[in-house]
């Protein structure tokens, strides 16, 4: 049965408390900061898409210069606070830490980054100011990581920025698409406000491209346009029964959870989650933490090919989620319009496909799970309809850009998930920086 309000207030609180608690105090942070070797041409920095000077910010913590440390982080990544909570660091900075080669625990870079950036946000240390007005206006579509990062760089150079955001809040997937035990809605709001504190950035909420305004309008009224609207709805399974009550999108599920509060989110007794990416993990673990009795994750390939990291998989396993590898949903069976069962095909691995991963092949055998809720987390689909309508060059909806972040339409730039189809927050932040740099060049500023 799908129902909300399954747990007590305390249970909700415990289940959604911070999964990676911060350092308790300065001494604790400094013990780890002092472990850092201060590598030259550091592998961790190379592992960071925004190239944060990690040895430097850690040394600044060790040397009692938290302000300097936070500045070092924000200089490269204005969402450094959020990234410290949501980055899959095991495959980025911490994965590259040289201590791994000694079979020692890597420096807890994310935790140290959180230590410095949280202090900066709490104390409202502002490190950046706007240069004199450049007399230029730029429109940005999407107030997610790419858009905010782009806006911040532009504002520093004196550009007036207007962001058009379709939701009620800024932050994009940081606010709406990530597990609540990683970042809280309050934190996301604080982070957006911290970024906006520089001034010169206006966000127009509940403004959706193609619905509330057009690309032509932006081109006409602004000196340049940056498209950072990310990707849209969850990929459809295209199987019979997909419309039955109880089949939901992972992104919608997480969105509601972030938007409406835990007790009001309905969850089934037995939930199947389709997919094995980060979003799938976030959906599965949160379904469990909302009180689902059983959660089963299904993936059509094996652990070798899974898109999530081992650390993420371990979170799901520790939460008690069951994993079935080599299983592909075939159809949903229901009664009275509601989900009752999920029939899956058993798969085996064939030859490597274009992604280099071995592609799954149907063995012809099936098995059936008794479930009352199915969460679809097999990736998200770009806004193909809208980009095609505006005659933007694209590949299956992913906007094509050149090395100057420019689309085929003059003065229109793009970046982030809208271009790459969906990567990490930190990749989007870097894309926003790159886009801003290209726009400044286009506008002949700096």
């Amino acid at each position, binding site marked *: 049965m799908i129902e909300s309000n399954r747990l007590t207030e305390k249970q909700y609180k415990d289940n959604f408390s911070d999964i990676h608690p911060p350092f308790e105090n300065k001494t604790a942070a*400094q*013990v780890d*900061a*002092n*472990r850092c*070797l*201060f*590598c*030259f*041409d*550091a*592998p*961790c920095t*190379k*592992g960071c898409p925004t190239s944060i000077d990690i040895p430097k910010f850690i040394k600044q913590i*060790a040397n009692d210069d938290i302000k300097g440390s936070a500045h070092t982080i924000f200089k490269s990544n204005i969402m450094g606070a959020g990234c410290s909570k949501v980055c899959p660091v095991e495959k980025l900075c911490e994965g*590259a830490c*040289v*201590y791994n*080669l*000694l079979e020692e625990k890597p420096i807890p870079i994310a935790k140290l980054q959180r230590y410095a950036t949280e202090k900066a946000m709490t104390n409202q240390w502002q490190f950046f100011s706007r240069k004199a007005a450049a007399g230029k206006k730029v429109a940005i579509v999407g107030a997610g990581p790419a858009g905010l990062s782009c806006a911040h760089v532009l504002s520093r150079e004196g550009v007036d920025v207007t962001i058009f955001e379709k939701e009620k809040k800024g932050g994009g997937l940081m606010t709406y698409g990530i597990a609540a035990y990683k970042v809280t809605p309050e934190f996301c709001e604080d982070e957006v406000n911290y970024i906006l504190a520089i001034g010169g950035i206006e966000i127009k909420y509940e403004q959706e491209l193609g619905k509330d305004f057009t690309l032509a309008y932006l081109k006409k009224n602004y000196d340049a346009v940056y498209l950072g609207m990310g990707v849209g709805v969850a990929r459809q399974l295209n199987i019979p029964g997909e419309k039955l009550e109880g089949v939901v999108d992972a992104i919608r599920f997480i969105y509601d959870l972030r938007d409406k509060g835990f007790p009001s989110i309905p969850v089934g007794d037995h939930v199947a989650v389709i997919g094995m990416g980060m979003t799938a993990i976030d959906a599965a673990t949160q379904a469990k933490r909302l009180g689902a009795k059983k959660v089963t994750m299904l993936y059509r390939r094996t652990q070798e090919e899974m898109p999530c990291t081992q650390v993420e998989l371990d979170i799901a396993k520790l939460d008690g989620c069951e994993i079935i590898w080599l299983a592909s949903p075939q159809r949903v069976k229901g009664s009275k319009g509601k989900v009752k069962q999920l029939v899956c095909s058993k798969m085996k691995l064939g030859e490597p496909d274009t992604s280099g991963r071995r592609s799954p092949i149907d063995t012809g055998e099936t098995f059936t799970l008794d479930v009352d809720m199915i969460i679809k987390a097999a990736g998200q689909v770009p806004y193909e309809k809208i980009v095609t309508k505006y005659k933007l060059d694209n590949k299956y909806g992913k906007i094509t850009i050149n090395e100057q972040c420019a689309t085929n339409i003059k003065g229109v730039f793009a970046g982030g998930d809208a271009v790459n189809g969906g990567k990490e927050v930190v990749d989007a932040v870097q894309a926003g920086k790159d886009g801003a740099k290209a726009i400044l060049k286009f506008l002949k500023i700096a």
Partner: protein
Amino acid sequence: MADISSNFLGIKSPNPFWLASAPPTDKKYNVLRAFEAGWGGVVWKTLGSQVKNVSSRYSAVDYHGGRVMGFNNIELISDRPLDINLKEIKECIKLFPDRAMVVSLMADNNRESWHELIKKVEDTGAHGLELNFGCPHGMTERGMGAAVGQDPEIACMVVEWVMEAATIPVITKLTPNVHSVVPTGRSVVKAGTNALSLINTIQSVTGVDLDTLVPNPYVAGKSVFGGYCGPAVKPIALKFLTTIAQDEMTKKVPVSGIGGVSNWKDAVEFMLLGASNVQVCTAAMKYGFRIVEDMCEGLNNWMDEKGFFTLDDFIGKSVDKITHWEDLDINYHHIAKINQDKCIHCGLCYIACEDTSHQSIRIEKGNPYNTYTIIDSACVGCNLCQLVCPVDQCITMEEHRVAPEYVNWIEWQKRGLPLNDH
């Protein structure tokens, strides 16, 4: 099992580890705890005219997250009444007759005061006396402590007074607040001291509080120069010790080594450079008396491994290994080698060599790991890369002699051999 018992001028102790004259040895309670823990002996905190201490008294230098790399104090000699000290010393000797009890002294600057003090102390049954010619603060303003040790003539005079009265062994403790400890050392040996001990603390300012701008230790908005000790001073102590161990006159008397001894390895190093035993303070003040267990066991295991049966088998064995620069072999050359199997690609060797040494490390960029190799022809064999490398045995220094024969600098010049051309 090796025999680690020590005989210093006839003062016997079950091991060569004594607690130095300092706060840990200023009363019976502490000393009994030390003996129970296993310390071989103590040098009782300096007795003299009664003084008054201030608050605070200590400060320290931390390094890279570690506490008390160096330790500083502005405490004076014992501030307890003399008769209580004497009574307690007697009781300690009675309770632990197998341990060494040496008493540190700093009498007022006249013959009678010294004679009187020595008499009283000898009456306790103490095994030896240590003359405090080293305390660098507080007492110097009164013409005592380092003020005596810094002037060979005054030191000589005081030791002569002492030797007139003393019937038990006398150890003279030297101050390092001089450019060389040898002149005072010679002078007190000439005056008849039975042994030397060194070093006392080094004058210092450990730091300044960046909020209040007052240096530490803090005493009502002010501070004074203090005496520095602990691990940070060990290299300085070893150098002074070596000069005493090499001097023709001072090497005739045994030396008790002091200065940052924190574990058995430090102790062995002091003994290899000529100390017959060692005195410890800072390490005990940081961790308590229990550290002596590890010191005894470590020393014993090392001696077994090296085949030494008694302390005398290795005391002084490294003294002649320290020579004059002019005697070093110029044909000796070694080159760093980076063991690629052990390298963790931190780049510390590279940046140290590139920025501050001889640009002898090649960098091959990689993502995320660069590869670092030595440019043999450019390496001068300075050791810097090996010293900064965080991985044990990753960088080794491989011998590549320039020529087989020994040639020193004097000979090199005589033969007109080539100098560097870069």
